């Protein structure tokens, strides 16, 4: 599956060294990376990724009141819990046959927009960018830093930094100007979130059937005034990221190979259009296409489908390397979808989770996570889709589909145009994100600040529409419902780091089955029964090493950049094993700079 070409025609005898990092820092959750690196040919030849946490949501939710699902599933994730609540409420609304009032959709959309802005900002500027900051580049690529000091920043008129190195310095942890400002921006955006959803990160005002947030003028003015305070920061962030990433391609020819894989992107869509959505399964294709981020599956740069019904029916949860019993011999919960299409036994609706804790064996079972795949009917492949960390797939699918056309956002078929209003320093600005040549580490990271801008632009539209409804007296935010004796539902949404779906089966007014599928199992899944590796494997295996350090003081920054570009969020657990065992000539674990402070 990997597209990595052999970069050198004259390969040297391999010098393989074992390198591991466990736990990985500056991500959410628990992840370890185990690699074998060929220092003679400067590439990663093998990699295992492991995360070890099982909590059992699908197990302990059985038999509970389905209305509790949104409150419970928020606790799956401590940085994007609200995405789970929102997705759960989408699934419940389908099961209960209830459509929230339009105002409730706007409030939910505004909350989610604030979440995207907060989460991408803190992750990009305070976690990811430490790998690109001056201190890190000095320790890993001093030659590149020297060049950065001599390179003028092309977009300095926007962000105010003279050289590329000046930008890198501004991202030094706890001391850099932008690092500190990003923490503050992450707080202002969380205040915006709290205005809509009550608190962060586990929201208190989201219910199936609507919200509890009172739409008053100050609800929206308080949000708008904060949004305008961060709008220039967002414009500058895009410019700084573009400058640094363009510089990396230029300073390190071949850097596009880092973290590159075949374009296999999935996006499940974000922000319902309140005028179109009715949460009926039968019309899911129509209201899915009306979302303000278009769902879609992109294979080799082409759109395979953006029909949520196809997307739903193609879901397959595989085993092969995980600590669970298989459920193929259980009774299915759902044999046909509401349209009469057959539902596979490996679909989340029919999944049963039976944990079997056991020893970690990299050549056997080594994972608390399963392997989600998407079955491509035309080719018969079970595709290991990735999310590109979230923004890359969202922008790519939206750009290709060409459906989104709002006052501030326009999808053109090959790009997405984002217009942001005047701020206190910078004029009205139109940013354009173009579909890139590669699905790689840098493009995953580059897409992130663009999506912050996208979320800000959408927030402006939701604010205007919500204020319009408010002034017209349309302030109802909740629609009552009865929990049916038997029902099924599914919700599709974009968590911050990518695809999120919840699948619910109700029997006797209780949860009979509930399976959430967050982005990280997609991105970091282990090999399935067909031996298909997960996305991390493609991305890391065969990637070149550009770090200037040798085995003795190796930091692995190129590998870490790739891993972090996917925005790993591991409370759902990940493991992976790649490649076939190699003979080791040296064994070494990096313990650089291990001072106790």
């Amino acid at each position, binding site marked *: 599956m990997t597209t990595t070409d052999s970069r050198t025609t004259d390969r040297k005898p391999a010098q393989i060294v074992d390198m591991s990092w466990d736990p990985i820092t500056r991500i959410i959750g628990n992840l370890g990376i185990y690699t074998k690196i060929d220092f003679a040919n400067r590439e990663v030849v093998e990699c295992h990724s492991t995360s070890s946490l099982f909590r059992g949501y699908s197990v302990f939710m*059985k038999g509970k009141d389905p209305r509790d699902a949104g409150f419970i599933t928020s606790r799956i994730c401590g940085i994007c819990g609200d995405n789970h609540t929102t997705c759960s409420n989408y699934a419940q609304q389908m099961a209960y046959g209830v459509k929230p009032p339009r105002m409730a959709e706007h409030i939910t959309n505004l909350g989610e927009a604030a979440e995207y802005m907060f989460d991408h900002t803190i992750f990009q500027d305070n976690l990811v960018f430490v790998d690109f900051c001056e201190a890190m580049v000095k320790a890993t690529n001093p030659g590149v830093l020297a060049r950065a000091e001599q390179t003028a920043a092309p977009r300095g008129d926007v962000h105010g930094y003279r050289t590329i190195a000046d930008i890198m310095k501004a991202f030094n942890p706890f001391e850099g100007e932008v690092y500190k400002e990003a923490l503050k921006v992450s707080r202002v955006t969380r205040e915006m979130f709290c205005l809509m959803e009550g608190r962060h990160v586990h929201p208190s005002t989201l219910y199936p059937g609507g919200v509890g947030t009172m739409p008053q003028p100050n609800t929206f003015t308080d949000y708008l005034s904060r949004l305008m305070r961060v709008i220039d920061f967002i414009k500058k962030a895009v410019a700084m990221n573009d400058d640094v990433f363009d510089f990396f391609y230029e300073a390190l020819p071949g850097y596009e190979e880092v973290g590159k894989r075949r374009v296999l992107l999935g996006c499940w869509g974000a922000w319902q259009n309140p005028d179109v959505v009715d949460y009926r399964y039968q019309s899911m294709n129509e209201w899915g296409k009306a979302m303000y981020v278009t769902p879609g599956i992109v294979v080799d740069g082409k759109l395979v489908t953006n029909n949520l019904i196809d997307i739903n029916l193609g879901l397959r949860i595989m085993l092969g390397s995980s600590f669970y019993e298989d459920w193929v011999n259980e009774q299915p919960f759902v044999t046909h979808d509401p349209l009469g299409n057959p539902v596979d036994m490996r679909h989340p609706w029919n999944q049963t989770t039976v944990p079997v804790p056991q020893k970690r064996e990299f050549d056997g079972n080594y994972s608390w996570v399963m392997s989600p795949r998407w079955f491509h009917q035309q080719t018969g492949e079970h595709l290991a889709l990735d999310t590109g960390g979230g923004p890359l797939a969202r922008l790519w699918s939206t750009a290709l589909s060409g459906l989104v056309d709002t006052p501030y956002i326009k999808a053109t078929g090959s790009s997405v145009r984002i217009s942001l209003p005047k701020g206190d320093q910078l004029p009205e600005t139109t940013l354009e994100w173009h579909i890139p040549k590669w699905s790689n580490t840098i493009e995953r990271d580059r897409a992130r600040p663009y999506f912050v801008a996208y979320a800000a632009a959408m927030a402006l539209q939701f604010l205007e529409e919500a204020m319009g409804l408010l002034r017209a007296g349309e302030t109802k935010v909740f629609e009552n419902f009865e929990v049916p004796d038997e029902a099924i539902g599914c919700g599709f949404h974009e968590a911050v780091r990518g695809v999120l779906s919840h699948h619910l089966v109700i029997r006797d007014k209780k949860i009979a089955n509930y399976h959430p599928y967050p982005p990280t199992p997609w991105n970091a899944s282990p090999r399935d029964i067909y031996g298909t590796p997960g996305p991390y494997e493609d991305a890391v295996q065969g990637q070149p090493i550009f770090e200037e350090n040798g085995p003795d003081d190796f930091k692995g920054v190129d590998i870490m950049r790739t891993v972090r570009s996917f925005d790993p969020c591991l409370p759902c657990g990940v493991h992976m094993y790649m490649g076939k065992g190699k003979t080791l000539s040296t064994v070494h674990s990096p313990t650089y700079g291990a001072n106790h402070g």
Partner: protein
Amino acid sequence: MTTQSGTTEVRGEPGRAEERNGIDEIHILWISEGMSCDGDTVSLTAAGQPSIEDVVLGLIPGLPKVNLVNKVLSPSLGGEDFLAPYRAAARGELGPFILVIEGSIPNQNIIEGDGYWTSFGNDPETGQPQTLNWWIDQLAPKAWAVVAAGTCATYGGIHAMAGNPTGCMGLADYLGWDFKSTAGLPVVNVPGCPIQPENFMETLVWVLQHAAGAAPPPPLDHMLRPQWLFGKTVHEGCDRAAYYEQADFAEDYTSPKCLVKTGCWGPVVNCNVPKRGWMAGIGGCPNVGGICIGCTMPGFPDAFMPFMDEPPGGTLSSMVIKPYGAVVRRLRGITNVMVNHEPKWRHNKRELTSGYDPRWRA
């Protein structure tokens, strides 16, 4: 901390009148590898009063120098470099440290044979994942103070609900409720799902001031919570409590009124969030329209489920207050009409009718 300024050495901290006999430098070893969502670490970054960077950069007077070791915020690349202080602490070779645990503590004893529920790094001997439980067993007895961040770590939380497969619990359940740190402190519990950012920072700063010798230990209640934060109920600080007094209840969520009939447990939950807001005074569940689901409580979540139904006690108390509330609301309505009138002497006619008398004596 000193900074070079020209040729003069400047002390990084203002001089104090009295000499302290406290700790000058302390580590915070934070482990979020309990069964957690990392939501408490993320919540910590929301605090502005004080912010975590203020504490780490020494901007709060009177604290020891703080070395924070936290996976999410650590500038290190990870692995053994990141684990070094934890390993040193386990060997007893690190200076005084505060151990912060985030996440529920699983029961390893129910696993037959090999396997683990959650781990943190590896056992160097076997290469197998090192269980969280091993780390707690090693570090808690050596810690200057032990802090449980969030409801999972304090009382078990969501992952410990009925029907859970992992047998998980809170830190004090694991260590024993009579556990004492080397400084003689019990486990300091800061519940909340997640922690209210400023509640946590305030508690941490108090513990640090205690370490510096500048404050007594923080006052905790019988569930080891800071008294000043959890001594009152949600209802006692709620923006909507006055509606309750007037027996004016929301029937569904499209309402600015008291939510007790739609599932709010505020009257019996120990938490200051409506009073304090969520961050910088913004938000705070019932204020904004969110029912209180009791997320700070030892009984969370099972005692409060199903969340969206009226609490059993609410039926009786709302019935009892109905006659009083109905009368009071009516009387207030009458008075309100009265005080909505200006007095009659405010006019633009040719005579003054305010009762003004220049020679008036009492």
